[in-house]
């Protein structure tokens, strides 16, 4: 199948998604409106119509979810895979899976909730540095009798890079805006004040041995972390066991297509390149 045909298929799927979503919402809202405004003296037939409208709306929304999934899968295979292959080597993609919850907990950067979802696993090599990444969503749902509260602890991307140095224990850096920080595997990490007041203002550094924080966070690395923070916002980094883990709370998923926007090849490729640039930024700026 050539690219034009694939794009046409995608565009059709995209339109189907938009129509089904609009129709689903309209039917559900209209059905609910009918139910709410109906008086008791109205005939039962109105009640049945309203109920049918609502149920149809829900069914159409379900159909939308299925179509959207299909669209995203096709989008990622068409745009993301190609761009990833052109930038990185040894690329392996699995859009269905991501990091295992235990793995996310082991990284220790994100507070664990009771709803953990991870997808869009990508691994590869850039300039000799192996990396893995996946989208991660961690939520905590609390039911208190009458009401249900959902706290989103993390919604973004988690990266794992090979880090050449091993002569240290564990060091973690959290931007102060990274509200739901993890338990760092319950190991004792002391707070470390770095020599830069500016850095201390924006970040919290924790290390099992204070000297390790100064060993991995060289002045130029601190500067690069500050740049990452100013560029991407909520950032958390952990150095442990020859790996560097980076969690960026972007409140969004990478490599996903926008179903409400017409597909233009060049723009989509640019978008995927931007998603990939996070990996390049980290590898180049953090001296991994």
């Amino acid at each position: 199948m050539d690219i034009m045909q694939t794009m046409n298929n995608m565009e059709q799927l995209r339109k189907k998604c938009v129509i089904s979503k609009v129709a689903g919402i309209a039917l559900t809202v209209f059905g609910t409106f009918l139910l709410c405004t109906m008086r008791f003296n109205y005939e039962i037939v109105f009640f049945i119509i309203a109920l049918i409208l609502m149920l149809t709306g829900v069914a159409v929304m379900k159909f939308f979810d299925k179509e959207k999934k299909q669209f995203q899968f096709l989008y990622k295979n068409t745009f993301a895979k190609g761009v990833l292959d052109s930038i990185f080597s040894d690329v392996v993609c699995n859009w269905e899976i991501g990091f295992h919850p235990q793995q996310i907990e082991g990284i220790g950067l994100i507070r664990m909730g009771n709803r953990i979802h991870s997808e869009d696993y990508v691994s590869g090599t850039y300039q000799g540095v192996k990396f893995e990444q996946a989208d991660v969503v961690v939520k905590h749902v609390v039911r208190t009798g009458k009401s249900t509260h959902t706290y989103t602890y993390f919604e973004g991307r988690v990266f794992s890079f090979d880090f050449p140095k091993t002569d240290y224990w564990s060091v973690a850096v959290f931007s102060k805006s990274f509200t739901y920080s993890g338990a760092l595997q319950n190991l004792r990490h002391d707070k470390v004040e770095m020599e830069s007041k500016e850095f201390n203002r924006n970040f919290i550094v924790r290390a099992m041995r204070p000297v390790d924080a100064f060993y991995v966070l060289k002045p130029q690395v601190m500067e690069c972390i500050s740049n990452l923070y100013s560029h991407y916002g909520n950032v958390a980094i952990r150095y442990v066991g020859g790996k560097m883990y980076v969690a960026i709370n972007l409140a969004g998923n990478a490599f996903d297509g926008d179903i409400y926007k017409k597909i233009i090849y060049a723009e989509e490729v640019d978008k995927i390149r931007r998603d990939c640039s996070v990996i390049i930024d980290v590898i180049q700026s953090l001296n991994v």
Partner: protein
Amino acid sequence: MEIAVVIIVIVVVIAIWYIGVSNSIKTAELKINEAESGIDVALTKRYDVLTKMLDTVKGYQKYEQSVLTEIVKLRSGMTMAEKNLANSSMDKLTKDINILAENYPELRSNNNFVELQKAIVEVEEHLQAARRLYNANVNSYNSKIIVFPNSIVAKNMNAVKKDYFEAEDIKRQDVKMEF
């Protein structure tokens, strides 16, 4: 009666504050001592690697035995100024060994020497980390003891400003290292 209660409250508050400040100064001093021991370890490691490097270099160019003993002498001193001086001497020695290696291609291709060069870079990185930790702790301690009213407690504890660990150019020139 009321005045007595007020005085007691004031005295208790001052005592709690005094103990708090005194503890924080002691903790800061303890952190400095820990960081200083880190510098000692890193300097010793650096010395050991340099000794091995000098042994490897020996075969290529004759050097004076005083090079090593000078460092040893400097290391025996315990003050921070002397540690600074020892570090400067080792900086100079490393530089001299690298210049020597530039002139002897066979030395550069010697596996043992290459490994030692890597080791010295690693050791220097550790020393750098220990130095930054020490200086950060000294900075925090010095700021703590000079700020009023903490300075009153610091004076009673005989706490004095600590020296930073940093290479001083003038002292570095004073140490003559020759092959």
